[in-house]
């Protein structure tokens, strides 16, 4: 799952295939990679790809702001 999520971020926000462009633990908001609409794009991806529903109160940085966080969040929702 981690490589899928990383690929999504690289492809959809950085338009690159260079795996070294981001670190898995890096804050996407702090690096300026995603803005507030970008968060919605992450939510759409997560919902469509992994079939989970993201509630409003779950849209917090802890769940969505890095590759690692997204993986942890989705894993928890699925499990």
């Amino acid at each position, binding site marked *: 799952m981690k490589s899928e999520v990383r690929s999504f971020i690289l*492809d*959809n*926000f*950085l*338009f*690159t295939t260079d795996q070294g462009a981001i670190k898995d633990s890096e*804050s996407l*908001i*702090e690096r*300026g*990679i*995603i*803005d*507030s*609409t*970008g*968060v*919605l*794009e992450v939510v759409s991806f997560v919902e469509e790809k992994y079939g989970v529903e993201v*509630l*409003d*109160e*779950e*849209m*917090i*940085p*802890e769940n969505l*702001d890095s590759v690692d966080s997204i993986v942890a969040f989705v894993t928890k929702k699925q499990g």
Partner: protein
Amino acid sequence: MCGIAGIVSIGSGASKPSLKSLEAMVGAISHRGPDEFGVYRDNRAGLAHARLSIVDVKAGQQPLTNHDKRLWLVFNGEIYNHVELKAELTLLGYSFRTQSDTEVLINAYSEWGDGAFQRFNGQWAVALWDPVKECLLLSRDPHGIAPLYYYESNSNLYFASEVKSIFAADENIPRELDPVGLDQTFTFWSIVPPQSVFKGIKELPPGAIRVYHQGAVSEYKCLDYQFPRSREEEFSGSVEEAGTELLRLLAAATKLRLQRSDVPVGCYLSGGLDSSIVAALAHQVSSESFSTFSLCFEDDEYDESSFQKQMVKHIGSRHSELLVKRSDIANAFRQVIEHTERPILRTAPVPLFMLSKLVQDQGIKTVLTGEGADEFIAGYDIFREAKVRRFWAKNPDSEWRHLLLDRLYPYLKRSPVAQRSMAKRFFGRNLADFRKPGFSHFPRWLSTSSIKRLYSVQYREQLAGVDVVADYTNALPSAFSEWKELNQDQYIEITTLLAGYLLSSQGDRMLMAHSVEGRFPFLDMNVVHFVNSLPPSYKLHVLNEKFLLKKIGHGLIPRGILQRKKQPYRAPDALAFIGHESIGWLNELLAPEMIAAAGVFDPRAVTALWGKCQKQAAKNQFSNIDNMSLTGVISTQQLFKSFVQNTPTLRRSENINFSTMIDVVNA
């Protein structure tokens, strides 16, 4: 306003300036001055002028000389206090043959030298040539309302109101995009003068005087903004007293700009506070009704017509409005870039390009407009955000002020905890930098810089050691750190966004594309001097923006407009380019070969961005950064195509007939 151009030999062995070149230069900017053309030429210098006749229509021709023919002048702009200066100069013994402000300018310089520029209340780009001393002086107003570019070859100095004019002078002048200029534009929305987006082409900084004399060049900043460094330097009156004084100064500034013209003056109406105040003040001093002009959009998100109509009713103006559709924006875009002469991150200039055409069609040559209020009286969100962020940086455990959050994450309205938490992360970036100059602008510069994720490998390499933010902040005035924080933030906004984007790409360039001059009461010398001296709380009162201006608005403009939530002027961006029939020219510009030819961006990254934008258009969900990136890429590609691969299509040198021709070249 007008267009100016010239060639001065600065190297040894330079030949006399070519009349053909001067013709081509002025032909390239005839949109700035379609009424009359003039040229002066001697063995060393050629000065050319394209006139938009506004003051002393009959006799104010240029180039103009002074009483003893020792000085020659070409000038683009208006000196609104020319009547008062003329009275002073007449007392000092000067006589005048015309009613023009041009003649006042040259005589003022004769009398006061460089000090003359500090007495001018207006807007200008000036070239003064002394044929005996062989000395050329270039000057620009302190706000940068009037443009001025120059290029130094080994033998010649070329100057002009627009870059296309310099390119038209000689096909050997290199035309190439400059990575540093682009990197600045992709950070600040503007270059930082003297840097331009073209290699070798320089922009004279606002407020600067540059002199060429006997092989030497000197330049200094003659006029710069002052802010109080201590309580003693601040305005000491009450808010009420400040309001009274501001109203008086604004009314005087509006009156000057409305009345000092020999042709009718119109007024732009956005529906917002600033232009409404200008229109209301103009109405108060005007014996007859004047024309107003507004933009309407089919998208509700951008449209402000109900407020515009309120204002029209209030002042009884002759009103014209232009409905702008998304496809109109795409259709006009290429021409717009030929006028902005630099990339843009938003399509907002395009409707203004269309609006000035409407003004021209109605036979109006000059309009009052409300630019400057947001910068000088603190109307923008960026000032409120900076205040909140600084407070939070100093008090990290404090209750979060959530006033700004709903605008950032509106879709989280129902989950305030999530909303607060996301906004904290977004606003909290670089919070430790709260003492650094530029702190207020870091979030915007960071967002804008997202376009750099699309840079080509060559561009990344060329820009590897470049830090445009550090260069800019290191060059801030020495008094900067002594100013109050709001004033610091304002100075940055004024010198980057206002001068380099709003007054240029969105302002002068769009107005002049259709031979219309803009007049800016909020940029009046006395208004600016006064508001800069105000205590910050008179401008940003807690988080209440443009506080003093809203106060004086009471009774002056309809309550509905006064109470509006601030809506910055915006036009549909990426959505303008997508959705209707596939646009051939756009696909061509974004094709891999074309991206590679320009060399700025990576072809695969652009293809990915373009694909994503088309997908997101279907959901009507564009991120701010993708909007800016797409507009930035398209405009850069068009800039490359128009200026580097080709030459702009605007030239009409075949039809230039100099009605004023002073040729004193020795055969």
